[in-house]
């Protein structure tokens, strides 16, 4: 394939657009990981075969896309140009769509999304409430481009920002736009990206301290350790060129010729697409030497992470890239001074990089106008731009959403997310991953931005947003996070290693009803020690899930301690399963019980033998009459 030059980038895009325009319409099949698990590849291939059989393959073009966002509804197909949205497809319903819609011209109501309140079918994607309040910047090409076809990305404007930079901007101008945008890192800490880049440029030298120029390195953090979050995976699976272009722009601004993407090995599809994208970009002259025919050179290598949460931390990540175990070091010396192999290194998150091309193309001021605060004076003045969240847990519409900073929690959870399913009640929302906290009902008016979330005792983090209903025990959730971190602590420093063990033991005692209220004071004391004396942020922020639940859900801790009750019905030592008179004696529970401890004649009230019950909860899951109660 021919290399692309500054002059013919547009022509390449136009050619692809012309190719698309030659079809009557496009059939966008989601092949993100979520949809694939539900049969996305099968749908893609069957659709192709059905078109061929009917000789429709010259009329309709099947395009495989990355994650569309509404993953819980997969497999998903969007029919363009009308934008008709089909969900939960199987081969039978797909055949119907082909026959009735593509051949007959009549969209199929049965496979459309249904309004949560009325049950009425919603034909167009744009009319579905889940998509209505979103604003796409990082996810600008989601569900539209084929991540395995660079021309498809170029047709949607990929690399236009890079061309603009190489033709009309000096490296300092690119830095200027990033500073002006006020963008803060999307990976967790929310450090101002422009400031980080500026510091690295200074460290490159030559300077008094380093008389020789030291070649800098760029790293993209795709380790995505936050359990319950998949923004970075989706961006890479959907639009890998957005990340590559962002890194090219960073390299141009900072003067780097070498970059790495550190990606966790649990993401095989993302790794595959990333490697394909890099190969295509090299072949077409968008990576490597003489990028777009200019004198600018930059290349990217992929590093697979071997599964350690702490390796998302910047110094641990550098260590593991050098082939050592991922233990953090004290940050007296910053990575921008001495990172990978002792070289000045800029580390940014996937989503941060994916925003850069838009910032360069549309200008930092445009980006700064989205979100909260006036970042023109100081980037610390607010939170500019949008943020991608993975909206999951006990919520009706699970998936990936991108919203402007400053949107209220309740808008995300109720307007976009559709609230809590199954007639349950909202209890808490968790943001910031294991470093974050749980916020209660009373905080639902909180604007979602870096500073408001921190002030409330949680954190923006990387974008996990886990909604919990009234069947979630907050002590159990706190213990869950502490146990996660206990497992993932690298063990290098004592407050984190030993503190997590001690905190886990106290929480364990509470969930078993073996604690006294005095222990709560001890718990808070331990948390304070860990917060101030841990070496890295894993240990220092580990207390947040405990402190935030103690702050907002103290009653629940007290109920465990004083009354030996788990109000949510989760902590096994404190609950028992019972069958209420709602039981109509259908035998479903007794047939499913793994210990055969439910007795009862057909059509009479069943009874659980509490001594033999192992509290697996299966009877409650399978009962159609809501007759099993936890007390």
């Amino acid at each position: 394939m021919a290399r692309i030059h500054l002059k013919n980038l547009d022509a390449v895009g136009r050619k692809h657009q012309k190719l698309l325009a030659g079809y009557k319409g496009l059939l966008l099949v989601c092949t993100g990981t979520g949809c694939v698990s539900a049969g996305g590849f099968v749908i893609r291939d069957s659709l192709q075969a059905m078109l061929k059989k009917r000789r429709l393959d010259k009329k309709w073009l099947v395009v495989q896309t990355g994650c569309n966002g509404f993953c819980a509804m997969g497999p998903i197909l969007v029919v363009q140009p009308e934008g008709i949205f089909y969900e939960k497809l199987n081969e039978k319903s797909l055949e119907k769509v082909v026959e009735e819609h593509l051949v007959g011209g009549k969209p199929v109501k049965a496979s459309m999304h249904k309004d949560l309140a009325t049950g009425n079918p919603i034909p167009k994607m744009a009319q579905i409430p889940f998509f209505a309040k979103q604003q796409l910047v990082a996810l600008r090409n989601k569900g539209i481009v084929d991540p395995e076809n660079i021309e498809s990305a170029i047709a949607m404007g990929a690399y236009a920002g890079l061309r603009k930079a190489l033709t009309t901007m000096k490296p300092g101008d690119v830095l200027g736009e990033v500073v002006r945008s006020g963008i803060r890192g999307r990976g967790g800490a929310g450090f101002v990206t422009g400031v980080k880049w500026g510091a690295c440029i200074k460290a490159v030298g030559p300077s008094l301290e380093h008389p020789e120029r030291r070649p800098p390195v760029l790293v993209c953090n795709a380790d995505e350790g936050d359990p319950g979050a998949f923004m970075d995976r989706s961006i890479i699976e959907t639009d890998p060129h957005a990340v590559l272009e962002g890194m090219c722009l960073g390299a141009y601004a900072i003067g780097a010729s070498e970059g790495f993407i550190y990606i966790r090995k649990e993401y095989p599809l993302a790794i595959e697409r990333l490697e394909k994208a890099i190969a295509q970009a090299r072949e077409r002259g968008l990576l490597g030497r003489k990028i777009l025919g200019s004198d600018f050179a930059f290349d990217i290598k992929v590093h697979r992470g071997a599964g350690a949460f702490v390796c998302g931390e910047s110094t641990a990540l550098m260590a593991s890239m050098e082939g050592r175990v991922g233990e953090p070091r004290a940050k007296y010396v910053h990575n921008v001074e001495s990172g990978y192999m002792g070289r000045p290194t800029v580390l940014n998150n996937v989503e941060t990089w994916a925003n850069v091309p838009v910032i360069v193309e549309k200008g930092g001021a445009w980006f700064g106008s989205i979100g909260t605060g006036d970042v023109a004076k100081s980037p610390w003045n607010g939170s500019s731009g949008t943020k991608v969240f993975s909206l999951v847990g006990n919520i009706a519409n699970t998936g990936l959403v991108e919203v402007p900073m400053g949107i209220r929690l309740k808008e995300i959870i109720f307007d976009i997310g559709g609230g809590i399913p199954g007639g349950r009640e909202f209890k808490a929302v968790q943001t910031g991953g294991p470093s974050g906290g749980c916020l209660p009902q009373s905080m639902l008016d909180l604007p979602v931005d870096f500073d408001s979330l921190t002030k409330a005792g949680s954190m923006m983090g990387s974008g996990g947003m886990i909604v919990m209903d009234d069947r979630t025990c907050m002590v159990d959730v706190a213990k869950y996070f502490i146990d996660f971190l206990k497992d993932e602590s690298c063990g290098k420093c004592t407050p984190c290693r030993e503190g997590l063990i001690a905190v886990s033991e106290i929480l364990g005692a509470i969930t078993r009803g073996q604690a006294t209220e005095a222990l709560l004071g001890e718990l808070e004391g331990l948390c304070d020690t860990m917060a101030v004396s841990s070496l890295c942020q894993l240990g220092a922020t580990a207390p947040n899930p405990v402190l935030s639940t103690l702050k907002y859900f103290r009653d629940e801790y007290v109920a465990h301690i004083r009354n030996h009750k788990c109000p949510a019905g989760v902590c096994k030592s404190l609950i028992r399963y019972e069958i209420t008179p709602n039981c109509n004696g259908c035998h479903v529970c007794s047939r499913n019980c793994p210990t055969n401890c439910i007795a009862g004649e057909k059509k009479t009230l069943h009874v659980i033998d509490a001594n033999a019950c192992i509290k697996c909860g299966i009877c409650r899951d399978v009962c159609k009459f809501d007759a099993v109660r936890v007390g």
Partner: protein
Amino acid sequence: MTTQKVDKILDRWKRDPQYAIEILQDIQDEHRHLPADVLHYVADALALPVGRLYHIGTFFKAFSLKPRGEHVLEVCMGTACHVRGAPRILDALSRELEVPEGGTTKDGKFTLEPVRCLGCCAIAPVVKVGKDLHGEIQAARVKTLVKKLAEG
């Protein structure tokens, strides 16, 4: 594992100790664990103390020093899966397979492995078997899932 195979992997990474983690990942992928003799061979080839490799092999979740089963059942224990009942799924699997967490069945067929987030949180709770992801798993359906897998 034959030395030729190990050599091929070593050559793929230019025998550079900087890629020690990558090299061990390739060995793990091919062999489902890191055998002691292979670790010693790699240590010699990279001129590293074998302790360094054991440190890596025990630090990262990707590695296992014991052989794993033919099918690894990875049960996601991430937050989204947790609030949708992942601990109950893990219990149910452990009961059906008659192995503890992290254990391998006697016939060497299955290993039960709790893992961190698999990145498909929207379809929680999730169990991954080989390349296949199973979403929205219910504890009551675990029995059928295990039966299907056992039959191949």
